[in-house]
């Protein structure tokens, strides 16, 4: 009796289970085949290159127009993959360190170059026989050399000859965006900004200034144009931090002096939120990278179409925008390095760069493109970009730069939070936090060795 009950259950359930496992087994077969297939196609070489990048508005013309144009002009297939910034940083680094060869070209942020070059994540373009277009603006081009041509050098590389490891494709640099309605003349100095803010900003808006306050890289981008303009350095040529000086403290105090005119949530703003305030017509001016220029005249994103002009970042002693750049390296494990080289030479050629500038006013890297009269009449920010690149200040060229930015950015954020809460005592807050960051960076560099 017991048997029959169980055998009834058995037939239904076991058939179901057998069916499931059988289906699993059958379905696994195509998955196995797929795995084998994908590994073989990625090694096919010849007429194909794979480009990986992080998502960004600036890359849209690259993705939608120029990649396809390269294929139609040369016949080389291009596979284009994008993901978010942090994931891409991790993926590309892993891919290069372990030479897994999933990509030919990494599109990078400029401060990845020292790390990727020193760690052999990317290979030397000079050794590949890369031909450098002399039309490229020097400050942008120099971002791709390791060891760096200028600035502080690490001891291990003090005597090595700089080699080109990455080639700049977009001259992303900081410029000043200001709303014409509030500035009869283009503002030139921080005092100009301050007086306009004092005269025209109000508590709920319009704000006098907007900024990125998130700890780490974002707030450092807010701070650098200030620091550079006051004559301070991120690090001096001997690697000692240069921002805890009177210049650095003064620069941070200037940012704090804008607190009455900034949105109260600024300490948690990243680019999107910082920029929204401006695009909604609620802010007089801000410093940002070139990507914003594509949004200001876009009616679906901006309420200030036609009202925004661009200029050099405000000066104190001088104007000192930070230079970013989107920069391309060839992976060490690249399946098709010659194809990658061909693509990069093609994209940085004067003709293609001119067309690139003509597409949405993208921040091309060549002198001819950024000064072409036809194009600059359409896209008024291009001369400002060229100007900014020529006056720009690079960040420290070292693989440890991300950590240094993180340290400085953490303390800057803490200082900002404190300043927002206290609304006074700006000098002592700035001095103590910047000194703290300077000491931590010095200690870190000592620990890493090869600097001091």
């Amino acid at each position: 009796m017991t048997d029959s009950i169980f055998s009834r259950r058995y037939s239904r359930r076991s058939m179901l289970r057998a069916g499931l496992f059988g289906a699993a087994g059958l379905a696994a077969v195509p998955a196995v085949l797929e795995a084998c297939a994908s590994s073989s196609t990625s090694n096919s070489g010849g007429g194909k290159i794979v480009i990986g990048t992080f998502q960004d508005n600036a890359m849209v013309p690259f993705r939608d127009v120029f990649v396809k144009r390269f294929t139609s002009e040369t016949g080389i297939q291009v596979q284009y993959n994008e993901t978010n910034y942090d994931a891409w940083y991790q993926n590309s680094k892993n891919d290069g360190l372990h030479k897994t060869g999933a990509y030919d070209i990494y599109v990078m942020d400029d401060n990845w170059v020292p790390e990727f070059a020193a760690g052999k994540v990317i290979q030397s373009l000079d050794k590949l026989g890369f031909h450098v277009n002399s039309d490229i603006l020097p400050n942008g081009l120099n971002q791709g050399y390791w060891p760096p041509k200028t600035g502080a050098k690490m001891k291990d590389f003090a005597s090595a000859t700089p080699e080109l490891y990455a080639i700049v494709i977009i001259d992303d640099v900081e410029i000043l965006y200001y709303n014409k309605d509030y500035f009869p003349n283009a503002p030139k100095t921080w005092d100009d900004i301050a007086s306009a803010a004092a005269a025209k900003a109000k508590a709920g808006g319009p704000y006098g200034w907007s900024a990125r306050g998130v700890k780490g890289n974002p707030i450092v981008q807010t701070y650098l144009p200030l620091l550079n303009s006051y004559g301070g350095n991120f690090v001096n040529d001997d690697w000692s931090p240069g921002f805890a000086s009177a210049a650095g403290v003064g620069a941070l105090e200037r940012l704090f002096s804008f607190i009455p005119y900034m949105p109260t949530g600024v300490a948690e703003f990243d680019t999107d939120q910082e920029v929204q305030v401006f695009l909604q017509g609620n802010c007089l001016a801000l410093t940002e990278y070139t990507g914003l220029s594509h949004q200001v005249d876009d009616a679906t994103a901006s309420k200030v179409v036609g009202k925004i002009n661009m200029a050099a970042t405000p000066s104190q002693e001088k104007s000192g925008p930070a230079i970013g750049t989107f920069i391309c390296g060839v992976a060490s494990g690249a399946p098709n390095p010659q194809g990658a080289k061909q693509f990069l030479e093609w994209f940085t050629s004067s003709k293609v760069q001119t067309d690139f500038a003509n597409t949405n006013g993208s921040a091309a890297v060549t002198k001819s493109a950024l000064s072409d009269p036809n194009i600059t009449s359409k896209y008024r920010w291009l001369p400002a970009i060229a100007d900014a690149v020529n006056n720009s200040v690079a960040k420290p060229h070292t693989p440890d730069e991300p950590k240094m930015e993180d340290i400085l950015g953490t303390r800057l954020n803490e200082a900002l939070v404190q300043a927002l809460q206290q609304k006074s005592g700006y000098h002592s807050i700035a001095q103590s936090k910047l000194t703290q960051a300077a000491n931590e960076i010095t200690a870190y560099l000592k620990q890493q060795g090869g600097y001091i």
Partner: protein
Amino acid sequence: MRAGLRGVPVYAGLVAAEVFALFPFWWMITTSLKHQVEIFSGLELLPTAPTLDNFFALFETYNFGPFLFNSVTVVVFSVLLSLLLGTPAAYALTKLPTEGWLQKQALIVVLLVRMLPAILLVIPFYIVLANFQLLNTRIGLILLYTGLNTGFVIWLMQSFLAEIPRDIEEAALVDGDTRLTALWRIVLPLAAPGLAATSIFSVINIYNDFLIALTMTSTPEAQTIPVGVSTLIGKIQIQWGPMAAAGVVGALPIVVFALLVQRHFVRGLTLGAVK
């Protein structure tokens, strides 16, 4: 009298708990139905101009179709395989002569494995997968998740299987079954609620994994939904509308699944996990 309270405070408390639990879902859903402009223009509990654009964008621009497919495929196979590996092992644990000691060791081992943080695991896994050309493949993920989930299966199934009275099995053995057919024919059907509960928790754990999927995959060929959701949190741009939509799409399969099987959650826990 059961250990509990009664009356209006009970219902008030429960309602409060429900509102607290469900409100974030509501907020995310309404945000996903708004245009970017509306999201920034002020606080609204209900979208005044609802739109499905964000969802269309997910599938047209942000590759959520492949993400969904990858997640479902990887989860189904990983759970099946880990059940296949783990259930017989759990059964064996209950049948061993020194079962008390070994079961306790097994429990400790499984807990220890659970303690290993994902950052410890990702680089070694990355290197292994790289060596076998399994990076950025669904198979690679399935292998890793199966391995990781087997311990969990053993732990849960072991307590469910221990509940089943030996007499039924012994009776079957006397009647001519071997151990294996007894397992198949008699024990497993009785342990079905346990299998269900184990499957549920396994599905949830594997579907929700982020760091391992992030490191092992790099393109929509193999990336899963959690990775897909994170791609919307750009460094430069945060598209709030699509991000909210991504959250909705990310949560939906699991929520639907959980609603369908929620009966087994509690039954499963009641029957065995609480040991």
